[in-house]
């Protein structure tokens, strides 16, 4: 049953990700709320589970000339430094603190999503 639940959570996350809406942000709460997986592990699973699909998608986009190659490195290089820092910091604090912060993050993100919808309407 747990196996099915994991696949379904992945499905939900992947679905939104495939639609370009940040599926990871849904996968993490699904894993923590419905499967009781701790915050750090859930975040880890999120990062890892999207890798393979992303690679395939990147390959397809690359072949279709949809990737603007010249901006990739200028963004990745500074981002990478902070990504490492962020990951270390997240694993340093407690799961409950991380969960709380993530929850706030989600609520802020959702407000931005609402704004985005009403701006275009």
């Amino acid at each position, binding site marked *: 049953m747990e196996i099915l639940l994991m696949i379904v959570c*992945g499905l939900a996350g*992947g679905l939104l990700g*495939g*639609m370009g809406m940040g599926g990871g942000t849904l996968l*993490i709460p699904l894993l923590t709320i419905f499967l009781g997986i701790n915050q750090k592990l859930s975040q880890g699973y999120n990062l890892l589970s999207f890798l393979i699909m992303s690679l395939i*998608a990147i390959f397809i*986009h690359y072949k279709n000339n949809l990737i603007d190659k010249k901006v990739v490195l200028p*963004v990745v290089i500074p981002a990478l430094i902070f990504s490492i820092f*962020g990951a270390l910091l997240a694993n340093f604090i407690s799961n409950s603190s991380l969960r709380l912060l993530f929850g706030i993050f989600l609520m802020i993100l959702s407000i931005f999503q609402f704004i985005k919808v009403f701006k275009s309407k």
Partner: protein
Amino acid sequence: MNKLKFDKNLVKKLISSAIIGLTNGFFGGGGGMICVPLLENIYKIDNKKSHATTLAIIFPLSLVSSAIYITENSIDFLHLLYISLGVTIGGVIGAFLLKKLNNKVVRIIFAVVMFVAGLKMVI
């Protein structure tokens, strides 16, 4: 090198890149949601290309940060397999649905679900 000095947006670009990385590493995701607007508004890249390029940017970030998560936690790789399976299948379906569903409706539903989930995690 000269081009660097004349780029008025350089500060914005650097700060945004830093935030994307920070979000990716600290929250284990969400960097894409900041990256797409960055590419569209500051780099002036069209929507479709922004999404595609974002994937290319986020990938190495996730690769590196996930390595840190692996060393700091005991990842169950079997669980990861099941989750990845779901994600990959969902992703294919999602890419398919992208053209068929009303994006705005989906976005509103998504926003509501996100808010409720966030609230649940805070309370």
